[in-house]
């Protein structure tokens, strides 16, 4: 798709705020003006998205069995996370996750068994490998964003060509850290791509109580860089918009803010009960947006993959998760002495 010349941020800004969309909920392409998405993208993306679902499922059931602590699924947000991460190169680029972007962490190079080890409290086994340019999950909402701006800034100061891809949620956009990070990134013109995963909720708080802004992506103009809202359940649109933002950042064009409009199909985390604050009918309706179903419909509809082939992938990723779990469980649990290690350099 690299040959496409449309400036997506400009196209979006010229419109009425509706998120850009290439792939419709029914799995049909809605932009005849665009070339067909590359098939290799489809394959890699679908596998990652199905792996993510298998992981969500396994971790949720492990929690129910009391074998794993709090878990925050990414269910329903897979296209937003996978589509954007597929636009960067883990070999040169940095990943700064918020907390539920598991498929991005995996593709960036954190082995699945290590990721599971972290959820199982095997903290030393869970250590991010030295060559993997990725920050750990952030428990303090939005606090990772100034770090992302700083990493991207360092890249610019040192004249390296890496781009920093950072994620945050719709709730995170209300924190001062979001603002200070965006403004600094703008002034310094750093190679940062910020993907705001607007899944409509911050725990129980709907985005309508989070801000009166019609679209969060409008914030970008207040920082002097491009912003664009995209259908977060449309893998192709998310990928293309991110690809262009990464290209701009790499070329020295500074930051871009991408709002991926999606829906948190599941609970906030395993201790949350959405029925206390949202309507089942809303969830049912949102279910129709399901990014995995949408991509599957496209793949099968366009005759690119058979249902059987997809079943095979699903079986493979389930096995992958099971195997990684066994490995993770084989790692030693930390002893009390770990409390005193890694406070300062020894």
């Amino acid at each position, binding site marked *: 798709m690299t040959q496409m010349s449309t400036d997506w941020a400009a196209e979006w800004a010229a419109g009425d705020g509706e998120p850009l969309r290439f792939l419709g909920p029914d799995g049909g392409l809605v932009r005849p003006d665009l070339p067909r998405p590359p098939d290799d993208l489809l394959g890699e993306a679908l596998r990652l998205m199905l792996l993510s679902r298998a992981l969500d499922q396994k971790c949720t059931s492990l929690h129910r069995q009391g074998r794993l*602590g*709090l878990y925050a699924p990414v269910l329903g947000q897979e296209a937003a996370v996978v589509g954007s991460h597929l636009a960067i190169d883990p070999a040169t680029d940095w990943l700064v996750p918020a907390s539920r972007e598991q498929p991005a962490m995996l593709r960036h190079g954190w082995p699945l068994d290590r990721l599971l080890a972290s959820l199982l*409290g095997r*903290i030393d086994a869970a250590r991010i490998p030295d060559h993997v340019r990725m920050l750990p999950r952030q*428990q*303090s*909402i*939005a606090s990772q964003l100034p770090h992302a701006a700083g990493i991207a800034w360092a890249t610019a100061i040192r004249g390296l060509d890496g781009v920093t891809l950072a994620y945050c949620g719709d*709730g*995170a956009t*209300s*924190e*001062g*850290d979001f603002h200070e990070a965006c403004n600094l990134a703008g002034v310094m013109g750093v190679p940062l791509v910020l993907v705001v995963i607007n899944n409509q909720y*911050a*725990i*129980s*708080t709907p985005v309508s*109580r*989070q*801000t009166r802004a019609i679209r969060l992506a409008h914030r970008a103009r207040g920082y002097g860089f491009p912003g664009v809202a995209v259908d977060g359940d449309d893998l192709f649109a998310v990928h293309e918009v991110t690809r262009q933002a990464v290209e701009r950042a790499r070329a020295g064009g500074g930051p871009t803010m991408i709002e991926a409009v999606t829906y948190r199909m599941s609970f906030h985390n395993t201790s949350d009960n959405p029925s*206390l*604050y949202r309507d089942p009918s809303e969830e049912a309706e949102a279910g129709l947006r399901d990014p995995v179903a949408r991509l599957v419909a496209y793949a099968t509809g366009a005759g690119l993959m058979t249902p059987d082939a997809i079943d095979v992938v699903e079986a493979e990723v389930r096995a992958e998760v099971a195997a990684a779990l066994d490995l993770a469980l084989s790692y030693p*649990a*930390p002893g*009390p002495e*770990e*409390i*005193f290690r890694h*406070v300062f350099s020894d």
Partner: protein
Amino acid sequence: MSGESGVTLLEAVRTALSDAMADDDRVVLLGQDVGRLGGVFRATEGLYARFPGRVFDTPLAEGGIVGSSIGLAMGGLVPVAEIQFLGFLHQAFHQVTQQLARYRFRTRGRFHLPVTIRAPYGGGLRMPEFHPDSLEAQLANVPGLKVVAPAFPEDAYSLLRAAIRDPDPVLFLEPQRLYRSVRGPLPADGADDGDFGARLRRPGDDLLLVSWGPSVHTCLAAAAELEERHAVRSAVLDLRFLSPIDHARLHQEAAARRRVVVVHEGVRSAGLGAEVVASLQEALYDTVSLPILRVTAPDTPYPPGRLEDAYLPSQEKIVEAALRVVDRA
């Protein structure tokens, strides 16, 4: 005291909020998810429906919650803000230390701020980073703030009512581990008794255990073990008020026993235990000619998962410290 009868500490908090709102329609609640959901611990459950237009879900911004509470108070209301977990008060620390604590002083009384900030804190629930942090020492170092930490449902109710009635800002620290694990009666008349001092939770002549919040219960368990297994009778003093501290009562109870152990979940260095020891040293240097031991978290960040069991002041560590102090006698 954590018996089966009575209400939970969480219910006591909820009842105090509900009664305060019923008694004074200037009282409003705000915070993250305190509305329809009733808070992540359900401390405000039912209040959104019962008091329409007086319970507000805020955006995810602690500085905005504390800062707008200051404005709400200036505008004639009595805000009770929830910070979802005390650890996240650091996001609002500039509003707390520079603004909330200083407007009365800055304006020579033109403005005073009847603001209550509630926040769950403390360990034992296998929570992620920041959620279990104990920041009381830092808060006690901020002039113009009152800091209160109940350990029983009765105090949770009466001290929260008093905090909301207080014309000045009060930080109300709720021990989250006790929310559902501790039960007890509510104050008979439903009001507070105006006693703003420390409370002796268990008698005992050999030794004084000083603590507050969640670790009061660890101290009580340790005291029971000390009595049964070692015939050592330890009194347990629950400070309740962390700023200002009830120094008079502290000195009195310590002088009566001459052996003291201070217990808290916050880290040791520059922890509030240091203030307790310093206060005792100055007042009782010639009476307490014994080491005052501090049983606290070590000077390291709060660890994940099960490691907290080794990190927190445990019954075992308290008993050990108590025996050391007694043997030295």
